[in-house]
């Protein structure tokens, strides 16, 4: 299956922290939630190894559990998922397609409107 470059149906369009626009639908967010549970939550759950690192880094200024954030930029999430860092290895297109990555970004920015 070819990674989709965009999302076909936009029920709403949310302004995201970094100024990028991404289409969010309940379906996309749900897809992102599922992908997040499969790939990310092992390290980013409460008490997970990544969460512990982020607790040290943020010192309570923002939630260390990434799912609780309301200030993340979708474009930044997309870039992070494709970038190698010693803290978090990159995901290849065979791991997560472009549309998978966008869905994760949609999931992690689903509550950004709450902040505004």
């Amino acid at each position, binding site marked *: 299956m070819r990674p989709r470059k965009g999302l076909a149906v936009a029920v709403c369009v949310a302004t995201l922290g970094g100024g990028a626009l991404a289409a969010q639908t309940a379906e996309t967010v749900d897809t992102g939630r599922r992908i997040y549970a*499969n790939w990310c939550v092992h390290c980013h759950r409460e008490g997970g*190894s990544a969460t512990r690192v982020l607790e040290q880094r943020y010192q309570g200024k923002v939630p260390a559990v990434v799912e609780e954030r309301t200030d993340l930029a979708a474009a930044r999430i997309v870039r992070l998922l494709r970038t*190698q860092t010693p803290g978090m*290895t990159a995901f*290849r*297109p065979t*791991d997560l397609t472009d549309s998978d990555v966008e869905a994760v970004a949609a999931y992690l920015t689903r509550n950004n409107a709450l902040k505004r």
Partner: protein
Amino acid sequence: MAIPQGLTEQQFSTALNELAGVVGRDWVFRSREILETYRDVYSPYRNQADEPVASAAVAPATVEQVQQVVRIANTYRLPLWVFSTGRNYGYGGPAGVTRDAVTLDLKRMNRILDVNEEHAYAVVEPGVSFFELYRYVQERGIKLWLDVPGPGWGSLVGNTLEHGMGYTPYCDRMAFQCGMEVVLPNGDLVRTGMGALPGASTWQMYKHGLGPNVDGLFYQSPFGIVTKMGMWLMPEPETYLSCAIAVSGWDDLVPLVNRMRPLRHANLVSNNATFRPRGPVGGGPGGSALGPNGFPTGGWDVTVAFYGPEKIVDQQWEHVRDVYATLPGVEFQSRKYKQPMNRDAFDPADRSQAGVPGLVQGHPVFMSPVLPFTGEACLECIQVFDRIAQRYGRRYFGSWMHADSPHSIITTSGAELRAGDEAYNRQSVELAKAWIREGAARGWGAYRIHTALMDDTRAIYSFNDHALLRLHHTLKDALDPNGVLAPGKNGIWPRELRDRRGRRSA
């Protein structure tokens, strides 16, 4: 961007176009952005001129596509470095040995072909991770347990082929693999064991088939691409008892190990007895308080588990406690789980022995020797490795030691890396090489090795003037005359590269 040796840019481009014709243009990668994801983020040569980076990547989705990719590779003499999910961190991750290989990424081949509860086995493709198979089994209420290593996002096929181990009674996972399908370097397709019989009803039930068993040829190997694998799984037990035995003295490791050996021989302890230093010792900075002999004072523990009817596991544990009861200051812990079991709710310390995948952190340059199953050998290894580490201004106080086999111990030793510190990381490679050489002088060899150390490790397996390597090269030349598959894998090189074996000494 690197291109394979001997090819012009035009020839390489033509070859990639042919590959795109097989797998689809979207699954051949040559952009800098995507190839970045095929680098080993934990490479000791990260961002250096000799970091092994791929020239391109290709991701087939079917066995037929793998066959066609291999045939094209033969036409153009494209070197292919193969991975299943590319998470073999600490051993090279997704990256190969050489700088110019085309990565053959099998992650898209992620079908779980069969999970047979009655006969307790699974058949999977190489892209299936431990997480994915675990989820599949859990969601369907299948009462079978996997054996899982530390990194749950790794491939069941890939990790098993690299001699990866878990923590259940099926921890020596190679012993529980049954049947393979393999694409040979010429593109031919082979099924091993009973799989050679068309329509066989026992491919995953009987390992041997007729004639020489060739499955071993494809372990840690540049001789073929495994596209299907059968794996026996463990029936969920009626009761699971997770246990730990702790001792407080550094030298108490000797009786802790030695008293376990007959228990493993007799299968009274059937799973991977794992010996661990207590406290933050490891190879990094900030170790625990040192005793008068220079070693930490935290002592050791060993984790084991028992599986089966409650009255049996209770008696097994009672017997094991009797064996250790005379050790001064010994402490015992256990937690029992009965049906119905919710393994996701188990205490985190009990999950790996119950086949629940997780993710371990820490990716040094691994150099993990196999030792005799004696406490004396374990302590000697730590002392020798620490003396060597001190020559490099470091300390080494031991790491987890695994009795996945009843007859040996594997110590998961590793030289620490620091992100962005080139000098330190090159020194880490030199430290690991010293461990290899000086360990070999004592009769210890690694069970598996980082890509940066494959030639050095191969060099110590030298009986009769490297007769085993000559045999491997004879096989390589017969099976892969164009030398396309995994050049340099575990020191096995194509004929034309053999005279300058090893990229760092080339």
